[in-house]
């Protein structure tokens, strides 16, 4: 037990006497009724939407009133509550707003809650009964699902492990991160279910992929985690989900990828808005973010080129293992790889980091890859 109560209440005579006294006399303390807190009356801005976190952005309860550095609340007290003496120090790692805040955080959370889906009942699994895939396609699909299950498991762990480290005043961010962990758990579930329903079971774990995933999990700061996870990794995975939807051999797979891409795009949205927020409110962090990106881009470049992933994509995109299938598969997969990189730099530019292209080795790779593709007759 790392934390012990400050007293042994079961053996504290004064405490026990007070408990018994209240039972005996019915005499109440009621001092909590005089809490020096703000009285407000929130209402729904749009009754169709319901009472949202944005509707609660009032006075001291609101997120707009949050200071850049939260010094007063280090306990588990809900934002806006009176904090009496004696609350424990929750020892948050992140108490600076620009370390984790994103424009529209509260809306991303409301959207996440509203757009939850169920991998057990929202996917028409019964339609797979009549979907017979050739062995090569079935195995390639299962390898893709194995890879994605591996990705989503770490994507569940990573945001979840940051939750207790965030100052409790950042309610909306904590709620969004909790919803993200749920999204990722559902992705793990749906990909595992689809891998097993191919009839080929799971295929092979990916060392290259796991190295990239460990980088996400072991980030030193929330911002570093967010840059690596939300912006770089999930940005790449979003493009990958769209590509996978495009390649999907059955309407069941299409549905799976359309649903997971919705969640992923929301996470990327949060990542972009956080990145923008940091650059605007904590400009001295720009160089640190470049350093995070150097590492995240290095690892994502390697992870995206993992043999297990690339080859399954080539087979799915080309439709098999014949020479003409492979040529077509390479054409389409190359377009996808380059699109992933292009969209990554588009996002960074829009977030306020246009200089990234000039500093990034990944951008050099993008240009080299594009030139090689064009030389091979692949129109990008």
């Amino acid at each position, binding site marked *: 037990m790392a934390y012990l109560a400050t007293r042994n209440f079961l053996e504290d005579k004064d405490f026990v006497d007070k408990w018994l006294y209240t039972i005996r006399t019915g005499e109440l303390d009621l001092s909590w009724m005089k809490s020096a807190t703000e009285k407000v009356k929130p209402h729904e801005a*749009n009754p*169709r*939407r319901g009472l949202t976190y944005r509707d609660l952005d009032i006075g001291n309860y609101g997120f707009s009133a949050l200071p850049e550095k939260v010094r007063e609340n280090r306990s588990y007290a809900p934002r806006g509550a009176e904090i009496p003496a004696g609350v424990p120090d929750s020892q948050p790692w992140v108490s600076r707003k620009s370390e984790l805040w994103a424009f529209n955080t509260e*809306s991303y959370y*409301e*959207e996440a809650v*509203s*757009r*939850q*889906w169920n991998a057990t009942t929202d996917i028409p699994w019964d339609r797979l009964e009549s979907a017979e895939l050739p062995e090569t396609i079935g195995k390639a699909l299962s390898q893709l699902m194995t890879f994605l299950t591996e990705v989503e498991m770490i994507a569940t762990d990573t945001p979840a492990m940051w939750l207790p480290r965030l100052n409790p005043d950042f309610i909306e961010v904590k709620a969004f991160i909790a919803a993200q962990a749920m999204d990722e758990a559902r992705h793990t579930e749906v990909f595992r279910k689809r891998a097993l329903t191919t009839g080929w079971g799971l295929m092979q774990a990916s060392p290259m992929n796991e190295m990239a995933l460990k980088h996400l999990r072991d980030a030193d700061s929330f911002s570093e985690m967010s840059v690596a996870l939300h912006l770089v990794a999930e940005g790449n995975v*979003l493009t990958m*989900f*769209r*590509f996978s*939807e*495009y390649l*999907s*051999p*059955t*309407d069941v797979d*299409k*549905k799976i*990828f*359309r*649903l997971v*891409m*919705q969640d*992923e*795009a*929301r996470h*990327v*949205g949060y990542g*972009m*808005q956080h990145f923008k927020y940091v650059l605007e409110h904590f400009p001295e962090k720009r160089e640190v973010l470049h350093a995070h990106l150097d590492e995240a881009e290095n690892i994502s470049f390697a992870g995206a080129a993992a043999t297990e992933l690339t080859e399954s994509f080539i087979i799915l995109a080309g439709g098999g293992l014949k020479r003409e299938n492979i040529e077509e598969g390479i054409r*389409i997969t190359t*377009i996808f790889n380059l699109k992933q990189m292009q*969209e990554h730099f*588009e*996002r960074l530019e*829009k977030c306020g980091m246009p200089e990234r292209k000039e500093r990034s080795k990944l951008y050099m790779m993008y240009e080299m890859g594009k030139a090689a593709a064009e030389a091979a007759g692949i129109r990008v």
Partner: protein
Amino acid sequence: MAVSFPSVEYFEALREKMAAHQDKFQRLGFIDTTFGVSVANNGKSRSFILEFEVYELKSVREVPSVDPRQVDFVLVGDSRVWREMIENIRRNGEADTSHDINTLAHLGEQLKIVYDSPDGHDKLYRFMESIQEFFDLTSQVDVSFNQ
């Protein structure tokens, strides 16, 4: 009576169907996006702006052209591609694996997604299933083609 495509009436008909299937769209969740649809034919095009809010298509209007800076994204395609998609949905009750929006737009060879902001672009994917289900409602609408 058949509604012609492309027209405001076509999107209004989908809006009515969307309202009639509120349970399905509420289950899918909030959809907050404004996007354009552009249908090209013989060098000319007709463009529409669709504004979705909460669970509904709040408004649709025809415009001379769509400025990508004013919307999240624009779905742009030749009338032949749109027609094929609509006929496919009417035939199958929903888009088949070759005719859903992401598949048609992914390589930019059939439909194109034009956008100014990547954040706006990503909204297509944040609300993908709702948008797909919206277009799939075409299966319940009698459509004629005037281009």
